[in-house]
């Protein structure tokens, strides 16, 4: 019996013997990023640790969260009070949503740390981003995460295949003069030229809806299928919209009816790929078709410089992005990528010093983002970054890291890119309700029910696959039955209070 027990115990010990390193002099701080594609970070971390040893007084470890696993990993770490994670990515759309988690006490309030150690940070990022991060958290009004300086404004654009447009006998200027409701003749001609299996209108249905009706995402609304909307003043984004500062049920407006009617017409005429109307295939179809350039007009939520990315350059066609409105700053975009310090962290000061350095020091930012010079990238004669094959094993998500304006220009972007980038976003205007976040806690049940209803109808309606004549009334009735009015009233009451 004892022998057997000993055997089992020793086996268990063998199994659990984890890789405890010997005690080090410097404390280790760990950061968890989102959306990375990193298989080998050894060279980078070695260089980073040599660089930050004096400046931060800690050793860095990184948990490279991917798009698919970040939400689970981050919420588990935070909810369980895991001391192994000091800093974690947060934003308005991830599972560890900034406002909620700050309110529930998972993030350290940074105001004192900023005052003591954060002079560089304050100098490096615009005041407006500090404003956007200032919210009512567990310890009162304050900043609970370092807001990344990235594409902080939203701008939806038409993604135009100029090569094909010219073939059809139109110029880009002709296109710019058209609206969504005039695209029919373009599509008909494209269909005639390219044959029946060609679908000229390659859309992200939900984005298209926002572009045509001028609706804006309300932060705090139901996740992937938004129900609420504020309306944008399409001529001057900083002015009040046509409906005033009122949140509406976006599916009940006249604009929406007009949009889906037209979209259904396009769909019936065979201008829209049917697989765009199915949630499981919609995005795959869109990105795959985009790659081949087999479309005429698409939709693209745009970030400055996107036309220089390999994603667009590889399509083999001339692409133009024609904006629907000026870029606008809303709550969702201005809290689009942040890094917070977990209240479970045993090294909040070192963590903050690190974040301060990461957001203000070009050397560290470049190292962590682009890798080691001579290994992951080289500088060409003009001093521009050219990536090597090693880059394949080290591709973090640039925008998820912090102040991307510190990065050097790449050869694909061209010299002066980051400067223009900064100007572009510095000039973006804020919508009147900037900073408003709907706290949905009191109507969580309604939101869940409404989300299920919307998931059933919204995408297919937006893509034009359903006939609005028959399905839209059903949809609206189902929303009403699920408590749409209660949900709307709660959102509007909060908005009125917020705008004072």
């Amino acid at each position, binding site marked *: 019996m004892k022998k057997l027990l000993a055997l089992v115990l020793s*086996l*268990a010990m063998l*199994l*659990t*013997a*984890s*890789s405890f390193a010997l005690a080090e002099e410097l404390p280790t701080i760990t950061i*968890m990023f989102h*959306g990375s*594609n990193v*298989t080998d970070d050894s060279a980078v971390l070695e260089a980073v640790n040599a660089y930050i040893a004096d400046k931060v007084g800690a050793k860095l*470890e990184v*948990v490279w969260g*991917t*798009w*698919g*696993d970040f*939400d*689970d*990993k981050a919420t*588990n770490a935070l*909810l*369980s*009070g*895991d001391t*192994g994670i000091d800093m974690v990515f947060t934003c308005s*759309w991830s599972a560890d949503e900034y406002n909620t988690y700050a309110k529930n006490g998972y993030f350290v309030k940074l105001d004192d740390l900023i005052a003591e150690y954060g002079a560089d940070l304050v100098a490096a990022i615009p005041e407006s981003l500090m404003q956007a991060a200032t919210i009512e958290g567990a310890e009162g009004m304050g900043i609970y995460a370092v807001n990344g300086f990235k*594409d902080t404004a*939203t701008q939806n654009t038409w993604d135009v295949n100029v090569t094909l447009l010219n073939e059809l006998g139109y110029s880009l200027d002709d296109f710019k003069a058209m609206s969504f409701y005039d695209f029919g003749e373009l599509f008909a001609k494209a269909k005639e030229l390219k044959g029946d*299996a060609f679908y000229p209108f390659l859309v*992200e249905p*939900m*984005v298209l809806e926002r572009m045509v009706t001028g609706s804006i*995402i309300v932060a705090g609304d139901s*996740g*992937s299928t938004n129900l609420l909307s504020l309306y944008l003043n399409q001529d001057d984004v900083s002015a009040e919209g046509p409906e005033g500062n009122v949140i509406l049920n976006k599916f009940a407006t006249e604009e929406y009816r007009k949009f889906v009617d037209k979209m259904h017409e396009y769909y019936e005429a065979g201008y829209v790929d049917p*697989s765009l109307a199915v*949630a*499981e295939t*919609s*995005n*795959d179809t869109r*990105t*795959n*078709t*985009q*790659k*081949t350039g087999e479309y005429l007009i698409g939709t*693209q*939520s*745009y*970030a400055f410089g*996107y036309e220089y*990315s*390999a*994603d667009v350059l590889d399509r083999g066609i001339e692409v133009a992005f024609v904006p629907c409105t000026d870029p606008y700053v809303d709550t969702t975009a201005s809290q*689009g990528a942040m890094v917070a310090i977990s209240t479970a962290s045993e090294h909040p000061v070192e963590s903050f010093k690190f974040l301060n350095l990461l957001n203000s020091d070009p050397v560290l930012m470049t190292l962590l983002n682009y890798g080691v010079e001579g290994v992951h990238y080289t500088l060409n004669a003009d001093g521009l970054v050219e990536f090597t094959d090693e880059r394949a094993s080290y*591709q973090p*998500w640039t*925008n998820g890291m912090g102040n991307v304006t510190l990065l050097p220009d790449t050869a694909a972007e061209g010299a002066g890119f980051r400067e223009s980038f900064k100007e572009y976003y510095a000039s973006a205007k804020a919508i009147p309700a900037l900073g408003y976040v709907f706290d949905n806690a009191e109507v969580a049940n309604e939101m869940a029910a409404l989300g299920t209803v919307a998931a059933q109808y919204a995408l297919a309606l937006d893509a034009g696959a359903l006939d609005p004549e028959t399905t839209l009334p059903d949809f609206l009735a189902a929303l009403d039955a699920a408590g749409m009015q209660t949900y709307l009233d709660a959102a509007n009451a909060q908005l009125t209070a917020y705008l004072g």
Partner: protein
Amino acid sequence: MSKSRQTPATLNSFGPGAQALFHIVLGLFALLCIVPFIFVIIISFTSEDSIRQIGYSFMPLSWSTQAYKYVFQLGDALWRSYFNSFLITTVGTVLSVAICILYAYPLYRKDFKYRNFFNFLSFFTMIFGGGLVPTFVVCKTLLGLSDNYAALIVPLLFSPFNVIVMRTFFQTTVPRELIEASTIDGAGEYRTLIQIVLPVVKPGIATIALLNALAFWNEWFLSLLYITKNMDVIPLQYLLMRMQRNADFLAKNSAMLGADAAAAARNLPSQSLKMALVVFIVVPIACAYPFFQRYVVAGLTVGSVKG
């Protein structure tokens, strides 16, 4: 004619019409089971162009071995995780079967004083779980199950369901007289269990071994929870699941992420690559079935009335 009807071989048989019907129904059912696998294999050999143009099809426009070439280029990451899958499944199955038997056997023994208590103890966890976060805290903080193989094995070692199956198996196949006889012959408890009882319950062991092997082979959620830094220990299932979840996430959030999502989608594997990985995952476990089958079938029939 009437004489041949009396022979034992035909005594229990159906008429030819019914026979044919059964064959057709079962044949169709068997076909339904196998078709998805064939489809997966076909897709894994389909060229991306064909998928883009006509979608998944049994008769693609063109064939390609591109997906497999890419899989082999994954190199270390792939073979490492493949090896991990085998290691985790083997070690996990052996340990969990041992634990299951050692727990179920005393529960079967009427002379074990605390059997009701231990019965309840295991049954209770079937009905009430601790929830995700408390489980995570216990495993990670208390037991140190993080970034190591143990994290992928230990949480699955004990299954109350299997214990109940095994206990029932003991009860129905091992007559208590057998234990008495071996005790009278002078066998100790260990000898009784290992030399007398275990050979009788082989089919039961095979059944739970198969269940456990499947559970370990298909497990990916534990890797998601407990493996954060040390990607050297992840199994193949997780490698595939990560690709799938990345694609799902980008599909759901592309409107929020805009250009970032489009850029990230470039790193996603093609449809045929996913199917090629599925082939890699399915083939070994499908090969394991025939070995267990004999016992599983025996296990199904054993316990019924015997002459």
